[in-house]
């Protein structure tokens, strides 16, 4: 396995000589590697990037995966491999004692519109734009920005935040300290959980959709539109519920608050016909409910 791994390795020193076929390499001395992988169906791109830096994924109409890796030093080893429609890209730190600047690297990918992604990094931004397909994005401290993506989207960070603009499909976000901003979504299933981060959901609730947003200590803010239709449950243990849309919400149509009695801190309400289900909770933070103009 070690030998095979070494065989796959493309380092800066040997990269230019090792690139074959459709691969296009820059000069050996340049800290840049470019490779192209022709694919047939819907590719799966797997990136393991342990270094600091940015991963950017955009789509194009062509049936190929293009990878451009740039770095500040030779302290990073890249391995790139194609197995059918699966492309594996791994960046390994060759010298952990090198200064952080030397360990910076960035990956720029162009993929077909329908592509599955599995990206894992420690630091630096993950940016994905106009890609349709299931994706799992993991980061320690880096942020994750998604724009016009759709599919089953799983984002897991420890400290990094998520900004999801015009996303569609299903979204799972789990973080310790990261925040989540969901803007203009077309998501039918949303599950956001953070311990200390904030959550902002600014957009429409799809009818029959399920939306769960939980923050241990942060702010959970929802801004809905006049066209929405949802049942709302907002609950806190020691925090507050700031309902700035009380005039638009029909209160507690199921009588649930009475069942909870005086212990319950929160509210139930229905907007429109109550087609979607929205659950907001915080342990000690604030839940804010707003209706957009």
């Amino acid at each position, binding site marked *: 396995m070690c030998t095979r791994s070494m065989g796959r390795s493309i380092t800066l020193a040997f990269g230019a000589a090792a690139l074959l076929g459709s691969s296009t390499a820059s000069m050996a001395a340049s800290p840049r590697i470019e490779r192209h992988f022709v694919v047939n169906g819907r590719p799966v791109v797997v990136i393991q990037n*342990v270094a600091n830096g940015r991963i950017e994924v955009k789509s194009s109409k062509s049936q190929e995966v293009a990878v451009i890796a740039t770095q500040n030093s030779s302290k990073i080893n890249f391995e790139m491999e194609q197995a059918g429609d699966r492309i594996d890209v791994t960046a390994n730190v060759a010298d952990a004692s090198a200064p952080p600047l030397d360990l910076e690297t960035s990956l720029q990918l162009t993929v077909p519109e329908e592509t599955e992604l599995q990206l894992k990094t420690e630091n630096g931004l993950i940016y994905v734009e106009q890609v349709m397909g299931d994706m799992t994005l993991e980061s*320690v401290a880096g942020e994750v920005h998604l724009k016009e993506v759709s599919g089953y989207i799983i984002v897991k960070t420890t400290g990094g935040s998520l900004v999801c603009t015009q996303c569609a499909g299903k979204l799972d976000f789990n973080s310790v300290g990261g925040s989540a901003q969901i803007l203009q979504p077309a998501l039918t299933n949303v599950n956001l*959980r953070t*311990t200390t981060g904030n959550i902002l959901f600014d957009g429409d609730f799809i009818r029959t959709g399920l939306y769960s947003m*939980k923050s241990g200590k942060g702010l959970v803010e929802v801004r809905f539109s006049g066209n929405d239709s949802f049942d709302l449950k907002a609950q*806190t243990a*020691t925090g507050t519920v700031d309902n700035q849309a009380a005039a638009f919400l029909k209160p507690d149509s199921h009588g649930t608050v009475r069942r909870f009695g005086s212990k319950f801190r929160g509210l139930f309400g229905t907007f429109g016909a109550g087609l979607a289900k929205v659950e907001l909770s915080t342990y*000690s933070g604030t839940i804010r409910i707003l209706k957009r103009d």
Partner: protein
Amino acid sequence: MQCRDVEEVLEQDGLAPLPEAARMHVARCPHCRGYLADLETIVSTAHELPAEVEPPSRVWTSLLSQLESEGIIKESAAPAKVAPASWWDGFGQLLRSRALATVTVGAVIAAAALLQLRQPSEKALPPVPPGIQVTLEQLNQQEGLVRNMHLAGASPVDVALEQNLQQIDDFIADCERHLKAEPRDELAREYLYSAYQQKAELLAAMMDRGRSVN
């Protein structure tokens, strides 16, 4: 009252005596009667489960070998080298199984939390179930190891991980204080167990990172 309302009542109040409206609905609804019967079976079975289960060590060994055979984790390195290994090599071997154990501990906590949340609400809930105390102690021991390991690391990622671990610890302490005062606050309990699980996952990630960097 509709089926959905009955489900909601059951979800919130458990099998405690149902409100009159719910009873009337159940009496004429075969779907809800079946649902209720299923729930009663599940609860009665759950009550028969032992309160505290300590898996024997062979379970861990078996689990470890199965994961290794499936290639999910790497095989333990054979002691081929005669030369003394570095301190980190030895520590890495130790943590290889500990990382697995940590995640498992998180899963055990989460499962126990679920069971705990499904208990009838009449019973007062203890702050921490006794069966979990042992695993929590293990979690704290591993935290000590990880913290020592990361003291040497000053990279932005190490710093971020340390901060996140501290945030979780603070949050857990906060939840535990609250639950001592209000042991029946199920929302706080849910957050507490979720934080335990997150902590287990975070410790496992820190251990893995320690191995890959060193």
